[in-house]
């Protein structure tokens, strides 16, 4: 399925270890593993592949990969059903507390009405059924002029759409934004 990231539709490059015969994998294959696979083969994976992503189920504890984030290019979070919101907290911890700079992608049953919340929790990529949702993703953070609580907000005009940022795996920049309680308070 298509991926929205950096303001455009992209191919999903990540190749699941379990989906591919070992001999077809090269050093340049972007490889995707589960938390279990990562824990079991962390050293081998780092030694053999240049680009690595991990898929976390929503019962997985993000603390388990806290120390490994420098070795990961992307973390893929799963919504088994759109109303299971654990991934929001997972994303927030990864981006905000652990300072993860790579891609955080939401996959599974995500609906466009969640795009804003995802972005404010530090998610910068989403897997979608329909490419037409690109517009909704880009508009999500413009619906409101500000927010009532501090979270992570996309900084306009950074990390968008250059070949360089796409290939380096570092997307939109996130910034801690003061609460727009801002609204009633500071501003």
């Amino acid at each position: 399925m298509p991926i929205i990231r950096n303001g455009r539709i992209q191919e999903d490059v990540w190749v699941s270890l379990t989906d591919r015969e070992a001999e077809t994998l090269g050093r340049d294959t972007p490889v995707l593993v589960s938390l279990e696979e990562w824990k079991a083969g962390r050293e081998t994976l780092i030694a053999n592949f240049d680009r690595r992503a991990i898929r976390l189920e929503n019962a997985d504890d993000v603390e388990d990969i806290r120390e490994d984030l420098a070795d990961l290019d992307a973390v893929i979070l799963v919504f088994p059903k759109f109303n299971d919101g654990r991934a929001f907290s997972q994303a927030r911890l990864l981006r905000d507390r652990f300072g993860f700079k790579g891609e955080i992608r939401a996959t599974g049953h995500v609906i466009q009405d969640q795009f804003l919340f995802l972005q404010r929790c530090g998610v910068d990529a989403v897997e979608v059924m329909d490419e037409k949702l690109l517009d909704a993703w880009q508009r999500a953070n413009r619906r409101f002029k500000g927010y009532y609580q501090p979270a992570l907000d996309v900084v306009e005009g950074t990390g968008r759409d250059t070949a360089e940022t796409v290939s380096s795996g570092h997307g939109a920049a996130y910034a801690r934004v003061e609460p727009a309680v801002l609204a009633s308070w500071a501003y």
Partner: protein
Amino acid sequence: MYTYNEFDHAFVRDRTAEFRDQVARRIAGELTEDEFKPLRLMNGLYLQLHAYMLRVAIPYGTLSARQMRQLGYIARRWDRNWGHFTTRQNIQYNWTKLDDVPDILDALADVEMHAIQTSGNCIRNVTADQFAGVAADEIEDSRVWAEIMRQWSTLHPEFTFLPRKFKIAITGSENDRAAVKLHDIGLRMRRNDAGEVGFEVIVGGGQGRTPIVGETIREFLPKQHLLSYLEAILRTYNLLGRRDNLYKARIKILVAAVGIEKFAEMVEEEWHEIKDSALTLDAAKIAEIERHFAPPVYQEIAEPVAPYDAARFTDPAFAAWTRTNLFPHKQPGYTIVTVSLKPAGGVPGDATAEQMEALADLAEKYSLGELRIAHEQNVVLPYVRKQDLHTLWQALGEHGLADANIGLITDIISCPGLDYCNLANARAIPIAQRLSRHFSDPALQSEIGPITLNISGCINACGHHHVGNIGILGVDKKGVEHYQITIGGIADENAAIGKILGPSFPAESVVDAIDTLIGTFRKIRTEGETFIDTVTRVGITPFKETLYANH
């Protein structure tokens, strides 16, 4: 009270526009009902037995005369001329049409109101002591903090798809009128040894299928850390709360599973990480919100107020009303009036469009333009001069709003039950109506004394039956409505869950059964004892024996 600034106005308008778009997508078939459901719920829109029900937030139960008037207008224009005030200090419109809802939300936005997060698995409308800011017995005005929490929780990006709904209540008084021990989070304002005011934090309370009285996880939380502490609780719950079973998804189940000490530890650990983050409230920010709740300019009025005392002396019906429906005010010469929405044979919490407009007019005339909604489903006029009471009471009487029964047996809390709600097992309203008619004699009510009688049409307990001194729960017994009776429930600072007396009764026997309980009480009470005092003293056995001997 709080007034919107430009940001609040724009935010609510933007939110309404978003929902208008979602409704259009639903009607066009672009959203499935399954996908639309959480979106409409987060805008307070339920699909009930007969129609869409819109639940409008009345944040911490505070509203202006202008807002009350608009609620009446909405009832007349888009509903069937009435609304229902709920145990969460909200108002529900039971007969709305889906395509009208965006217009209703616009009409609400015109008066700084909305229906955001009155439903759904998110942080719901924060409730508070209905006497906040005016009660003689309070430490501090809890509305300041309720408003701060309202803002913080509004469209919170991380906590909008929680395992289950999440309710926060706050009281600024030692005497808990907000049932804080029966909420997911309860906050009690406290003064520590150094004289500073902060919060005692209680978690894991709740009613429903598994009623639990909340436990304290922090004795004293300094004010500026309120939001970071709440985020720590919510994050812990969001990550670890159960999602496999609807009935096991509330925070109380998580707290019970890990134990209160362990849960407190987990929260403290999480809090430690975010304690000094952007969530910290500095004094200037707090002061900015406090400014909205600054006390009004009161008149200097010497007590006793002679015309008031004279009216009490000459008008016994008025005197009776002043004995039940008033509460001591901070300011001499003023009082807090509770207007009963519990007339004999009426539907608890219902008000017609005309009554809402009359209340708005009276609030403007006699209560500095402000009203409150109590979780007991009554309306409060918080700033009434004692010299105006007699005139006010007469005016209320013209609109059927002068019942003298606050805190008495006919001041019944009741959910809408099976007359409206698709979750209900049994009707609650007709039971409340029969009981309030049966006990309508003022002398009898006065003789029985203070008591709470709460009715829920199902185990979800919206009618707070678990914490009524007498609780009535509607159950479905082989397709027939039956009612289970509990006694000993308490909603205040001594919160307790009522005990079931025995097998349930069919609808036609409920009034008799309650009458038997009251008869037993009157026989065994000691001088001056209230119903709950007697139950506490003798236990449930004497009540059980007479109840089942007679039936």
